[in-house]
């Protein structure tokens, strides 16, 4: 029996400002911490690399790479918010790139190939959803299975050969074209992030995503279409992975059998680092954006500082352990 059970519910101070802005996607404490981490990391890397961080070439690399991670990370955030996970994203990206690459080899026009990327991605997401929702396979197991199956299919589709006939127009569209200081890929990613943040925070369907992750049983009893919303989440992640695959080919115009390997870890790391709880029900798109930037900055910084590449994994792991560990401790003591 809690001794303070009859205490007034407003006994603890609640900030007025926080209350007013609650429904706007403004930084909370978690996001503030991430922003601080981002700034500190940037300063350290900028000094360590004697300013190489801010050269135009490096900034473009960083921003395009961040866009490619951030777009599927939106879908991953939604999937994890519902209490699920998808670890097949890397192989999925490779398979979409391979199938789309074949379309390029067959000299299909760009207007015909873009839907191929989107629909293939959505279709592969649907396969994951079918295994998890009607198939009742736990999400980690189901997508671990498709992670290796999709990778095998990359070998089958490409016959283990490289696909190099990627039109340079992709690079022109996503990287060379700029709006202000930003390459087009980053602009597209930012627009998608803003739309997703608004959908999750203010739309009925977004609130249902959070409700499912908080208490699936209660959500079902409240008449929320749990199965349908979970289906949307996996298909959305597939679709966004398809778009990321297209941008990847703009960044480096060839498909190898290893395209996308390990990409899923980067995406999941970005989401988890951004404060989305793996148990579901809690997390924001703004957090995911900041998480993505930190993940990319660490990867870039390791190159700029001439550290051996495997250290980027160690560093990223340490940052995740530190930030997730710090976020979990107070939750346990409530």
């Amino acid at each position, binding site marked *: *029996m*809690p001794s*303070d*059970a*009859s*205490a007034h*519910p*407003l006994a*603890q101070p*609640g900030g007025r400002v926080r*209350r007013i802005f*609650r*429904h706007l996607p403004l930084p909370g404490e978690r996001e503030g911490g991430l922003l601080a981490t981002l700034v500190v990391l940037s300063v350290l890397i900028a000094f360590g690399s004697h300013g190489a961080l801010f050269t135009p070439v490096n900034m473009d690399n960083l921003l395009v790479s961040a866009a490619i991670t951030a777009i599927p990370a939106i879908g991953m955030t939604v999937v994890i918010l519902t209490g699920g996970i998808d670890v097949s994203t890397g192989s999925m990206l490779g398979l979409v790139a391979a199938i789309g690459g074949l379309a390029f080899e067959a000299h299909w026009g760009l207007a015909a190939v873009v839907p191929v990327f989107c629909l293939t991605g959505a279709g592969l997401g649907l396969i994951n959803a079918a295994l998890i929702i009607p198939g009742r396979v736990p999400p980690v197991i189901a997508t671990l299975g498709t992670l290796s199956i999709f990778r095998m299919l990359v070998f089958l589709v490409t016959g283990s050969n490289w696909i190099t006939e990627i039109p340079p127009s992709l690079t022109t569209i996503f990287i060379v074209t700029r709006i202000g200081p930003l390459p087009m890929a980053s602009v597209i990613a930012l627009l998608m992030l803003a739309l997703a943040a608004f959908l999750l925070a*203010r*739309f*009925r*369907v977004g*609130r*249902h995503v*959070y*409700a499912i992750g*908080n*208490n699936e*049983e*209660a*959500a079902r*009893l*409240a*008449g*929320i279409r749990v199965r349908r919303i979970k289906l949307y989440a996996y298909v959305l992640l597939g679709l966004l992975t398809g778009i990321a695959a297209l941008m990847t080919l703009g960044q480096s115009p060839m498909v190898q059998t290893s395209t996308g390997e390990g990409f899923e870890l980067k995406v999941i790391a970005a989401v988890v680092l951004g404060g989305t709880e793996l148990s579901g*029900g*809690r997390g924001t798109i703004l957090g995911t954006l900041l998480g993505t930037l930190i993940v990319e900055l660490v990867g870039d910084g390791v190159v700029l500082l001439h550290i051996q590449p495997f250290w980027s994994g160690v560093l990223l792991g340490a940052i995740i352990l530190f930030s997730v560990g710090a976020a979990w401790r107070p939750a346990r003591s*409530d």
Partner: protein
Amino acid sequence: MAFVELTGIVKNFGGVRALKGVDLSVELGRTHALLGENGAGKSTLIRILTGAHRPDAGDIRIDGTPRTFRRPQDAQALGIAAVYQEPMVYPHLSVLENIFAGREIANSFGVVQHAAMRRKVAPWLDRLNMPAALLERPMSSLTLGWQQLVMIAQALVQNARVIIFDEPTSILSQAETDRLFAIIGRLRADGRGVVYITHRLDEVPRIADRVTVLTDGRVRGSYPIGKASHEHLLSLMAGRAGQEPVPDTHGLPRPHRAPLAAAGKPAFSPPVLEVRGLTLEGRFRDVSWSIPAGCVTGIYGLVGSGRSEVALSVFGFLRGARGVMLLEGKPIAPRAPAEAIRLGIGYLPEDRKLQGIFASKPLESNLTANALGRFTRPLGRLDFSALAAAARQAMAAYNIKARGEASPIAALSGGNQQKGLFARWAARALKVLILDEPTRGIDVQTKDEIHRFVRGLAVQGLAVIVISSDLPEVLAVSDRVIVMRQGRVAGEWSAEAMTAEAILGAAIGARSEAA
């Protein structure tokens, strides 16, 4: 006429009849208390009324029209809402979002309209004395009592005509209970029907207009308040155990204890196991048990009374209890079950599937899992033929029905699994054996057999503890009974003195005090 009319409701789960033809009516502007001990069928009845379960037989009429509920929303649409014992909440969402989850007010683009939701809930907040600022707080920052009020607000926003409260005060402090009762009074005055489920007899006259006693899936009586005395209601609740004589129900007459006397044992030898002033914050407080050898000590109490937690502390599974534990007069402080077992304490867990059997292993491995030391040969080799022989012996001794010692334990009936677990512990040289709900969900015949095995072990000189919320079982198998209530010892009876009414009364905190 009554707004809700349930007639002849029957519900079976597997072979168990949870409800055996129950009638219940709820009138608007009245509070109807549903009284019964754990396992009486109260929760099942409520799940049927809220559409979470479908009855196997019987009629549901709402406002005179026969209805079938296919899912909870069907019942909600007709104005029936429930406030569950553990509030069904979304911890990371705000209070406002909790109230409207699944029923958000949104414009035609699907954008949620917080201002409109706040306006809609405002009049109900006044009614519940909830400050409006509460709406923006995350649900997880509220105490359980306030969360419960949020759930009431949710029912009111849905325009519920009938609100069901499932043991709402079990999680509340005294002040919160008083506040809840005032609110229930107001709901009733508003012309809503209230169903109030409880096992706390003393609450009933404070809030109810009518009381129905449910035991063992049947209605034992239904009275307007004031027409039935406290003592009468208590005896109805004890029903099964009090009115039907024990020997007939379980084939275990009290004289079953005769062998003890015949074996020439002193009635209560010095205690083998003793706990003194044991306290574990939030679980139990100042508990003293004295457990003698050669007899069965029954521990009776409702779920949540702390009975299993004390046992688990003795067994080294729960840690951090303050107080003294003595085994044969020597202080012990087991830090893990393995240590308790080495000291000679055995514990047969409450949940057979989760904590007892090794489901994917054959019967043989399950029977001998606790005694592998006896079958180990030099270099750690296991003597498989000796293992098989021991398993066959146990199967014969405990009448375990299976095709052979190699058949998987998961293929056996619950009763045979339980006998197997029992055999597992009996194979060890123990001083104290604790059995937690040893016959839950087991057919009457096997129950009987297990009771005989329990008595047999006691006769051999073991100190046996049987923890149970099945009152007839406690009466049938025990030489003495300790009653637990809300984390404390509420009374203690020897075989000659124990009656169903006294034990139940102490367990639920009724006025008639322990002898």
